[in-house]
């Protein structure tokens, strides 16, 4: 049944506007300014219409605004369907729907859109602060819904918020059960918009001079690591392997488009390190592991240059267990094409470097000696480490070695690899991260984008691929204590990466530890975790049928308990308040020998009582009048009931 009475008041509009504004607020920073302005204007207009009881705008006007906005969105984004543009469309439509909202049903549709908008915020951020803010928003939206239902009196907004809060609190247990037991499906169900996960930072498959510099100043977390054993490996061994670059065009290094998934072997020289990595989504396929990984996590492959590649691009935080060997000896045999690829240099680029390489190699006895000579050159000549190097031109390696002589890992790795190749030593560049900060609060390691690093692997006969880090020759502190320890004093650094604010640093680690727990427990609750949970409660091969059965049984039990608790309040009944008050009055008089006979009516009893106790006549009169009116009168007014109660409470047989 619907209600013909679709009363819609100013306060309903006000609550609705507040809810929608709250839920849309986080999108403002991502929307073009004109959409924000348009939506704000429509909001104000709607409020104005409600405040002064004006007419809503005509349909053709709204249609024109809609068409204009769609055109504008297409110009701004180059598309209509997509994550960002879709939200822009949703925003405009929402504001327009508001302009034609005339009934409670329209308002309810807007409420449901508001709930949906909460989810769109999660596409951009699922952090704890977002979650807390959105919980508040949901509370306000639910309170708005409750407000719509007050048909008789309006008990005011604190009451409205209290009812909504109560509903949400009571919903928490059931929500938890659904969250844990609802069978999860591996998404996506259909293709996501192309821009679904844009805007994430991380390493790329190419490395040109200066391409890492934006990473080096970013304190965003790349991944977090939990080590199995208490003693973490020393920082100078923490080389987190990422994309491996083989090809050089004279300016840019790049990783092969088609990786070789051929199995290779190496000889471990130490006990394996066991750890768990939780990597933030970076929109690329590779996973990070310590040099050298000993296995591939589920749904990923290990390539012949020891890259770990996930089956799809990483659009979600991923957690995987890893085993690595920090000391190892490569098997020493490499296919011919691989070595040839590792020697290739383009045309005539960087002639000075080639000349230098030939010259230095001719003076060295063997490859090993040559490597040491090059490292010695970096160490002893006036090469310096800086995160803000001068720009380089068409022959970057020549310029770097001849004139600028200042740079960071990328410049040194690139120059070193070119020097090796020019002298006939196969070399490739490995990018990844180096080091990491141990969070003592949560006892795990944080690896940030600022820890991005590039090093070189050379192929030595008999030893195979061997890691050489030329940056360590220039700035040994880089591998000991991070990029910013290696930077000379006086260079600008992000505030939080500076060392002087110790308490700030401590607070930051605590916060990161909380965020990490949040990521692991709430955001990291995946199909695999659900399986583990089912195993723990004794269901080994959890099919979706068995999970649904468990879920429904638990839901039933919880709902039953909730229903019993809620309906119990109904049975805390009290007798009829009027009869109870009159009975108290009679009991008081009875104590003084004035007992009302069962057959005696209230009026007769009043006469008898007044005659016996004339000094109480006014009080007896008032009470009897009220009682008679409430019992036999046409209307039992709530005010009369409270008046009767007050009169009886004040009634004293002794003055």
């Amino acid at each position, binding site marked *: 049944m619907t209600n013909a009475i679709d009363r819609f008041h100013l306060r309903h509009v006000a609550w609705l506007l507040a809810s929608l504004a709250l839920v849309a607020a986080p999108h403002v920073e991502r929307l073009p300014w004109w959409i924000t302005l348009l939506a704000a204007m429509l909001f104000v207009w709607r409020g104005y219409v409600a405040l002064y009881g004006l007419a809503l705008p005509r349909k053709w006007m709204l249609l024109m605004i809609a068409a204009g906005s769609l055109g504008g969105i297409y110009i701004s984004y180059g598309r209509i369907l997509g994550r960002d543009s879709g939200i822009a469309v949703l925003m405009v439509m929402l504001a327009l729907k508001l302009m034609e909202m005339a009934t409670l*049903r329209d308002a309810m549709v807007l409420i449901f859109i508001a709930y949906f908008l909460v989810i769109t915020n999660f596409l951009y951020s699922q952090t704890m602060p977002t979650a807390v803010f959105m919980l508040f928003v949901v509370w306000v939206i639910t309170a708005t819904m409750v407000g719509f239902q007050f048909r008789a*009196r309006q008990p005011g907004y604190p009451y409205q918020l209290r009812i909504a809060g109560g509903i949400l609190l009571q919903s928490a247990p059931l929500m938890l059960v659904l969250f844990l037991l609802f069978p999860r499906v591996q998404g996506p*169900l259909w293709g996501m918009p192309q821009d679904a996960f844009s805007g994430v930072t991380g390493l790329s498959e190419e490395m040109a001079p200066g391409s890492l510099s934006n990473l080096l100043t970013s304190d965003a977390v790349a991944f977090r690591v939990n080590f199995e054993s208490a003693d973490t490996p020393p920082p100078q061994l923490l080389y987190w392997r990422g994309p491996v670059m083989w090809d050089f065009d004279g300016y840019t290094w790049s990783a092969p488009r088609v990786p070789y998934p051929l199995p290779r072997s190496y000889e471990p020289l130490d006990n394996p390190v066991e750890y768990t990595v939780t990597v933030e989504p970076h929109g690329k396929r590779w996973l990070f592991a310590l040099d050298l990984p000993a296995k591939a996590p589920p749904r990923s492959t290990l390539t012949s240059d020891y890259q770990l590649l996930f089956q799809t691009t990483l659009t979600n935080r991923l957690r995987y267990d890893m085993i690595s060997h920090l000391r190892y000896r490569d098997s020493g045999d490499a296919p011919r094409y691989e070595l040839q690829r590792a020697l290739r240099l383009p045309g005539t680029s960087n002639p000075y470097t080639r000349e230098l390489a030939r010259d230095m190699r001719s003076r060295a006895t063997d490859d090993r000696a040559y490597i040491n000579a090059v490292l010695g050159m970096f160490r002893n000549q006036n090469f310096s480490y800086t995160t803000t190097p001068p720009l380089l031109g068409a022959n970057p390696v020549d310029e770097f070695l001849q004139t600028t002589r200042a740079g960071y890992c990328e410049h040194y790795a690139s120059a070193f690899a070119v020097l090796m190749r020019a002298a006939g030593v196969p070399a490739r560049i490995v990018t990844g991260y180096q080091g990491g900060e141990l969070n003592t609060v949560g006892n795990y390691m944080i690896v940030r984008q600022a820890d991005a690093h590039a090093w070189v692997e050379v192929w030595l006969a008999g030893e195979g691929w061997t890691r050489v880090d030329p940056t360590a020759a220039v700035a040994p502190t880089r591998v000991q204590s991070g990029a910013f320890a290696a930077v000379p004093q006086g260079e600008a650094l992000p505030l939080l990466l500076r060392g002087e604010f110790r308490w700030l640093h401590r607070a930051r680690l605590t916060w990161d530890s909380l965020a990490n727990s949040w990521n692991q427990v709430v955001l990291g609750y995946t199909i695999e975790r659900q399986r583990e949970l089912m195993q723990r409660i004794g269901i080994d091969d959890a099919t979706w049928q068995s999970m649904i059965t468990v879920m429904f049984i638990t839901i039933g039990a919880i709902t039953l308990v909730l229903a019993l608790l809620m309906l119990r309040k109904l049975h805390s009944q009290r007798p009829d308040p009027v009869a109870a008050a009159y009975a108290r009055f009679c009991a008081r008089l009875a104590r003084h020998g004035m007992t009302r006979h069962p057959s005696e009516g209230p009026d007769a009893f009043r006469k008898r009582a007044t005659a016996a106790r004339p000094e109480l006549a006014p009080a007896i009169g008032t009470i009897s009048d009220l009682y008679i009116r409430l019992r036999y009168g046409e209307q*039992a007014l709530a005010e009369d009931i409270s008046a009767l109660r007050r009169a009886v409470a004040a009634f004293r047989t002794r003055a």
Partner: protein
Amino acid sequence: MRLTPVYAFLSAPYRALRAHIDRWLFQLHGPEAGHIVLVQRRIFILPSRHGMLYVGALLLMLTGSINYNLSLGFVLTFLLAAQGVNAILQTFRNLARLRVAAGRVAPVFAGDTARFTLVVDNPSTLDRFSIGITRDKHDAIYTDVLALQSTIVGVPVPAPQRGVLRPGRLTLFTHFPLGLCYAWAYAELDTQCIVYPRPEAGRVPLPAHDIHDGTGITRGSGQEDFAGLRSYHPGDSPRHIAWKAAARGEALLTKQFSGRADTELWLDWRATSDTLGVDGRLSRLARWVIDAHTAALSFGLRLPGITLPPAPGDAQRERCLEALALFQPTPA
């Protein structure tokens, strides 16, 4: 609803079957005396149209959460689903254990609207908001019943004909607190309203009356000696309304004229013309009763099979009008 002939042919058995099912499902037993407690089995609950829409929105949100693998999307969807389950319980509870009883109903004249008062009593310690009461599912009256309190609700019921008017089956319903569910209960209270015949309009002179005051002196009609004012009752002749006072903005007052208590006026069925028909004759009698009462005369009523001896006053007026309301003409 328009029905094609085939459906029209089937509609009678369908309606009978439907009524049968309704009686069984909703436990309809006709009017019940005393108060009705809305116990659990009397209350029915279904999702409202908004509730259906809500479920649809949740499914959409669930699909989005799966597609984008949004953990917090799952949290939100499941929180809202739990909220929906909670709304079922809350809406049900909002109606449960209310006590409904019939209050006094003032008699009305045919063509007016009777107001059946309903006492809704909340014996629990829980405030109940937005309880709707409706007869026809179109117009509803909403009321709140706070904890341990009662509320009086007047349900307007049109009274087209004289006789006994029953309110029929009332529906008490609620959507509170979220509007996602619709809970309702039926209450058919054993209460009635007497509907007087509509008094004939216009000037209808009172029948000639015998005066036995023992003196043999004929007095005036009793409409000439102004005796005072009393508040207006529906049905009072417009001729007796104190229009001057009304024009001053005061409440409507009716002029009363002194008659003689010993003046015997008989309002007789036989004195009315046969051509008026039963209801026309009753209307005229009703007019006379009101006029005679306004004139403060002592009057009696003679109907076939009923004789009310002459008496003055309000009680006599009501007695007579009630007799007219309930009069059943015997088929001659």
